[in-house]
């Protein structure tokens, strides 16, 4: 294992993110605040409580997950797509490192940034609503596991994409709808039975449910299932990355 190389990639990526940190922090903080105003205050005034939790506080885990997923995917996909696009990938390919180090460097940096954002949004949320975290360990677990898993997923998208449109395609068309329909803003128990069953096919539901459980001990599905699901996603992403490594897919002709 070439640790110097992992460190080099990681720090280089972090430096790139530091340059754009202001934008990348401001925009999710701003949009989260807007969600609080719209959902927490305006709508929350009417709903008040969901499963014994104040509505404004109820949506916090979902909002954090939304930011985490979107940012993990966009950071990691852009991080590897950009050098492919401008050609600087040649250096990474010619370096004495294997794909494993490349993945750890790029995905590690993207996941770190998502984590930082997640924590910032959590801190912002404290300003708006009363939040309690009943299971801090599992809260951190979900935070970290989601960041890593979806950064891996973003990395795969970045390798697969051969144009900027494709880079946007999956986050926009798949991930955002899944997050919105995954119980960020409601409990699936509020849905009619048919839609409740449909929602169970939404993988993001399990993440949000588990994450919310670590805050308030209310969940749409049992937390064990949520934990199993996140490992399942992680396994899928690792499998895909392994396959890319074996075949050199879209990296090496």
């Amino acid at each position, binding site marked *: 294992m*070439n640790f*110097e*190389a992992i*460190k*080099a*990639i990681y*720090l*280089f990526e972090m*430096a*790139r993110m530091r*340059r754009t940190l202001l934008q990348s922090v401001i925009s999710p903080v701003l949009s989260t605040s807007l969600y609080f105003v719209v959902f927490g205050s305006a709508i929350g005034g009417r709903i008040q409580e969901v499963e014994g939790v104040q509505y404004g506080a109820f949506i916090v885990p979902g909002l954090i997950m939304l930011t985490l997923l979107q940012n993990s995917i966009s950071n990691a996909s852009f991080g590897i797509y950009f050098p492919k696009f*401008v*050609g*600087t990938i*040649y*250096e*990474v*390919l*010619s*370096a*004495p*490192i*294997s794909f494993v180090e490349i993945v750890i460097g790029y995905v590690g940096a993207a996941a770190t940034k998502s984590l930082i954002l997640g924590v910032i949004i959590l801190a912002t949320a404290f300003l708006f609503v009363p939040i309690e975290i009943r299971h801090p360990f599992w809260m951190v677990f979900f935070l970290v596991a989601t960041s890593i898993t979806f950064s891996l997923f973003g990395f795969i998208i970045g390798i697969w994409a051969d144009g900027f449109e494709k880079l946007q395609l999956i986050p926009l068309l798949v991930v955002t709808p899944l997050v919105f329909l995954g119980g960020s803003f409601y409990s699936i128990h509020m849905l009619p039975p048919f839609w409740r069953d449909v929602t169970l096919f939404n993988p993001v539901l399990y993440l949000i449910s588990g994450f919310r459980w670590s805050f308030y001990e209310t969940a749409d599905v049992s937390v064990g299932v949520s934990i199993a699901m996140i490992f399942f996603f992680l396994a899928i992403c690792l499998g895909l990355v392994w396959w890319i490594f074996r075949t*050199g897919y879209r990296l*090496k*002709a």
Partner: protein
Amino acid sequence: MPNAISISNLSKTYEGGFTALHGIDLDIRDGEILALLGPNGAGKTTLISLVCGILNPTTGTVNVQGHDIIKDFRAARQLIGLVPQELHVETFETVWATVNYSRGLFGKKPDPALCERILKDLSLWDKKDNKIMQLSGGMKRRVMIAKALAHEPRILFLDEPTAGVDVELRKDMWQLVRRLRENGVTIILTTHYIEEAEEIADRVGVINKGRLILVEEKKELMRKLGKKQLTLELVEGLPELPEALSHYDLDVQDGGRRLVYSYDTQAARTGIGSLLADLNRAGIAVKDLDTEQSSLEDIFVSLVEEAR
């Protein structure tokens, strides 16, 4: 002396079926400067990319100081530095950050003193805190050289280092190349220009249409390349070559109205003087004369024909 790089039966067929390299065999000697010559699309960049691990070979093996580039890729790549043909740079980074990054990427501990020396050698030191997008094209190329040198490679590939480079920088570059060679670094460079190879290389390889058609000591090649032709237009056609001229390498053309004499520019005596004297003595009047140096193109043509 051991070889820096041994390439055997290396070929590359791109997706879509185009074969850019056909079974290349080449030994690159330790410490030499090898120039790879060839026209556009010959396969020079493909060859370099295969050795450096940017492309996967279709067939064949490459050994870098005894390390197979696939089985033992870490050891092999550690030894190699690459300056690619295209200017691929991290536009938004500073010169300093990007050069240090390159060193780390190759697994080396940071060494600010070394990076400083490299940047100074390449006259980039005063630009070290500039973003790369603020540099000119020639400076960007120097940054790429600095990146390639940052991990102290023992073998350096320069893919068309002089493309888009002014005379001054070219001179600096050759100076740098010579200095590296003095330190025992093996250097492989590609070029379209025979003069460049002549100036700097120890050996020259010629690639055409994906085949290595010749690898030779520069001196030997220059002898071959150094052939010139003297064309003599005669006032009257010769029915046949007079006996007195038979020992010259003469080609009679155009029904005896034109004589073409091939000679070696590097030879101590070209024989032109005596040829003209003998013509005069034989009473053959010359209307016009013209000399022509065989070009790289001619060499390609003759080499390709020979190879058939």
